[in-house]
């Protein structure tokens, strides 16, 4: 690992995004708009918004970061810049860590904005710490980033890359407990959901929202989320090849 190469990459990715203001606006405003939409959809059942609002603060950023990073990494490969970097003294993990760092910065802004709107304007109530919610939203965005970087290795075109969102994230969202309590699902699905990182994201956000306090289960959720980020980045680095056909 080489901190200079990682930081240089993070700075370069930020410069690239700065050239594309519309993407920045979409990254920041789409989660806000969706959470607002959910609030109004359940105008007649405010208790539903109170239950799903907080988990959505984490899940929307995860989804948008997943999409943006999988396309960004795909562009790196198709433009030939990845091959050029592979002839240079940069470790594969440095490159991915640089991407993760840059998008983590955006995630902080994105998560803070959507949380501020949800707590300040949409009357979303949290029994636990609001800062913990924002922190979890950032971790979720980071997980989306790491998963996006990983799956981009399996896409040869933008058309394929965008399809990975429904393939990788939709099932996780359906099984996370957001739509139905996991114990009420078919047994096979409940077991499958034990192996999906979003299950732990939903659980952590929902626990903080209910204010159940710090316990072993919350510690497990955090460990699984952090571990998934690291595993996805390392696996993503392993899928990059210095030598290709």
């Amino acid at each position, binding site marked *: 690992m080489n901190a*200079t*190469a990682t930081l*240089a*990459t993070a*700075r*370069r990715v930020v*410069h*690239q995004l700065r*050239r*594309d203001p519309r993407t920045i606006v979409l990254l920041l405003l789409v989660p806000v708009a969706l959470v607002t939409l959910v609030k109004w959809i359940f105008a007649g059942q405010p208790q539903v918004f109170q239950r799903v609002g907080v988990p959505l603060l984490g899940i929307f950023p995860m989804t948008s970061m997943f999409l943006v990073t999988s396309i960004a990494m795909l562009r790196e490969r198709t*433009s*030939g*810049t990845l*091959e*050029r*970097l*592979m*002839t*240079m*003294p*940069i470790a594969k993990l440095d490159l991915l860590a640089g991407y993760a760092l840059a998008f983590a910065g955006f995630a902080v802004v994105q998560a803070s904005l959507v949380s501020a709107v949800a707590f300040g304007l949409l009357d979303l109530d949290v029994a636990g710490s609001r800062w913990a919610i924002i922190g979890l939203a950032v971790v979720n965005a980071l997980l989306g980033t790491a998963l996006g970087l990983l799956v981009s290795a399996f896409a040869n075109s933008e058309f394929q890359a965008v399809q990975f969102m429904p393939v990788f994230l939709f099932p996780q969202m359906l099984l996370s407990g957001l739509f139905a309590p996991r114990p009420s699902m078919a047994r096979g699905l409940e077991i499958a959901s034990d192996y999906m990182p979003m299950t732990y994201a939903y659980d952590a956000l929902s626990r903080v929202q209910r204010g159940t306090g710090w316990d072993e289960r919350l510690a497990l959720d955090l460990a699984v989320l952090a571990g998934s980020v690291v595993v996805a980045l390392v696996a993503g680095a392993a899928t990059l090849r*210095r*030598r*290709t*056909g």
Partner: protein
Amino acid sequence: MPPAIEVRGLRVERGGNPVLHGLDLSIEQGMVTGLLGPSGCGKTTLMRAIVGVQKVAGGSVMVLGAPAGSPALRRRVAYVTQAPSVYSDLTVDENLRYFARVLGAPAGAVARAVATVGLAGFETRPAAKLSGGQKNRLSLATALLADPEVLVLDEPTVGLDPVLRQELWTTFHELADAGATLLVSSHVMDEAERCDRLVLMREGHVVADDAPADLLARTATPTVEAAFLKLVDFREPAA
């Protein structure tokens, strides 16, 4: 002096078909070697093997005494692909600064590289807004940042006007005079006379490896193009 690049029995296959079949080649240090041959003859594949980004099926490629692509070579060997590999949404300056940081290039390397390729005055222009030739030169500037000992350039003069082409060839010889080894591919035979040494390739084989004058004398032909045709049997049209 040992050769800068030593290729022995290099075999590369793509989709089960051989692209290079047991190729042998040595490239001397401090020279500009031209790699010539029709499009599709394996020039790019050979160059990719030399910089260590090509999967190979057999044989060995040694560069500056180390296996091609080994970590020790990543600062000493630079590669310019045929299509410019730069970030089109970044400016000339941002592109070069990024690669300079990754390479750990010395201060002033960016300004020097910009001047060498004649892009002074375009530093703040996004690469997407450069002409094709300017983008190629930005890609070349990236390769010059770390003062590499071996430069592998795949068709660096395509799409350049004759004045710029002349200037770049002068630059190549200045770099070689300073001790660098350059391997420059081209499918334009008239660029051959600017090289110290010529390697002619066809269908994955080296058909000649000579100084330009010796090649012409040996084949008793007036031009490199005629020499090439004679070597590959003139009755068969070259691709």
